[in-house]
């Protein structure tokens, strides 16, 4: 009878069910925080890559005279400046209809918007890897089209980037707090478990078991139940992220202008770290607290 299964030294039902719930909930929250940090990280990257690769030129409406004629000449002048600038891949004016669509989320559609003196917009794409001297370009545009304003979005990017960084740092802080709370809950539970199984511990001790043997019996118990509970918690969070992705694919936008709240598959894989880390925390905490308690008792 080789490879025989050894019975677990501690009974399976160690009254740890409440601990399983705590670890499950903690893992769920940890997975949400981790997911949020991944989304924020991806968004920050998108903002860096996407927005900074583009320039927008606004042609403001002139105060007096023929507005449309001024728009037409200044737009043409700005376009020719942009197109003659090395590093600009292409520049194209945005039509009135498109411009109205852009302000629609704020102002709504309809006659009001149609009557608004919207600036003319030119969208320019920078060739990847080409540095553009923004102040110099701005000056040249001003000379060609006095009512133009060059926007390289750096102001927005900086703010979005710092927002994303705040989200990421907050997520890390939350993860650290969850780790501490998990460790505290496990410590509490192992002490209670030691109390509940005092007779078993005493017997093992009587038979000459060293503290390490007793601690191993406990730490395996907590490792396995934490792994199971945290897998459930993180799994639920993963399902939420996948559902958010499904909604987006179905055309439901979670929040306009914010990055999608779903995770890619490679990012979902990161959530596997949650049960692994939870189980490690439970294992290490159980071991340390059992060894400390045994030192006090025996």
């Amino acid at each position, binding site marked *: *009878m080789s490879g025989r299964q050894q019975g677990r030294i501690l009974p399976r039902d160690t009254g740890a069910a409440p601990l399983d719930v705590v670890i499950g909930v903690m893992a769920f929250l940890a997975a949400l925080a981790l997911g949020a940090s991944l989304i924020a990280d991806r968004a920050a990257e998108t903002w860096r890559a996407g927005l900074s690769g583009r320039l927008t030129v606004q042609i403001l409406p002139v105060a007096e005279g023929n507005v449309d004629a001024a728009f037409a000449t200044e737009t043409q002048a700005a376009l020719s400046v942009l197109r003659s600038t090395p590093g600009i891949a292409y520049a194209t004016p945005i039509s009135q209809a498109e411009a109205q669509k852009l302000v629609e989320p704020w102002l709504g559609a309809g006659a009001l918007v149609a009557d608004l003196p919207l600036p003319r917009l030119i969208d320019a794409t920078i060739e990847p890897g080409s540095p553009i001297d923004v102040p110099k370009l701005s000056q040249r545009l001003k000379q060609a089209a006095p009512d133009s304003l060059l926007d390289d979005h750096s102001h927005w990017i900086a703010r979005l980037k710092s927002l994303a960084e705040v989200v990421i740092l907050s997520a890390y802080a939350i993860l650290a707090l969850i780790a501490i709370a998990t460790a505290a809950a496990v410590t509490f539970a192992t002490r209670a478990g030691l109390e509940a199984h005092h007779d078993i511990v005493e017997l093992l001790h009587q*038979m*000459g078991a*060293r503290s390490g043997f007793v601690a191993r019996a406990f730490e395996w118990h907590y490792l396995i139940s934490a792994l199971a509970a945290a897998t459930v918690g993180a799994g639920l969070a993963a399902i939420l992220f996948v559902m958010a992705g499904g909604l987006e694919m179905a055309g439901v936008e979670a929040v306009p202008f914010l990055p999608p709240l779903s995770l890619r598959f490679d990012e979902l894989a990161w959530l596997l770290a949650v049960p692994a880390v939870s189980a490690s925390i439970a294992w290490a905490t159980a071991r340390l607290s059992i060894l400390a308690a045994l030192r006090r008792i025996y």
Partner: protein
Amino acid sequence: MIRFENVGMRYGPGPEILRDATFVLEPGSFSFLTGPSGAGKTTLLKLLYLAEPPSRGLVTLFGRDLATSRRSEFPAIRRRIGVVFQDFRLLEHLSAFDNVALPLRIAGRKPDDYTADVEELLAWVGLGDRMQARPATLSGGEQQRVAIARAVVARPDLLIADEPTGNVDPDMGQRLIRLFGELNRLGTTVLIATHDRGLLERTKAREMRLVDGRLVELRKARL
């Protein structure tokens, strides 16, 4: 060698339960400890298996003075002692097999290595077909035999048994005493606390009697 010199024991401020106990258990000896209930038999055994430190006096186990031994040495000493507790102290969630295997697991042995030994021993005490049974499903006598198998499985240098035949019929009692005798022939020092006069009459072993906390040597071993 196991030696008690003027050992006294009291719990807290209570009366002294054991008074000036002095005796020697020679290696490989077989002794009985008798006496009325409450005479201090269980207390004396507890001191022997290191469950309690004595209030006074000198206890020497396997040539070591316990008072000067380090705490870290105790597990190794305890592994050389097999104990049959009066209340068995089996782990309820483990099978008879796993209960008996426990001392071997504690000693760091692997299942492949000990399975045959444990099965053979369980068969010897008549539990060959109850190996996977939990203690709750075993009769009192069967539980006692599991407890005895657990105490002897690691071939301890000292076997201490507290009323080991209290729950079994005379035939099985005889069989268990033969098991102890077998172990004793292999070199284990055996000390059995019992009320069972019949058991005493059938052997020629030494008898120590505890009366009111004092130890009296009633009978030397007859060879």
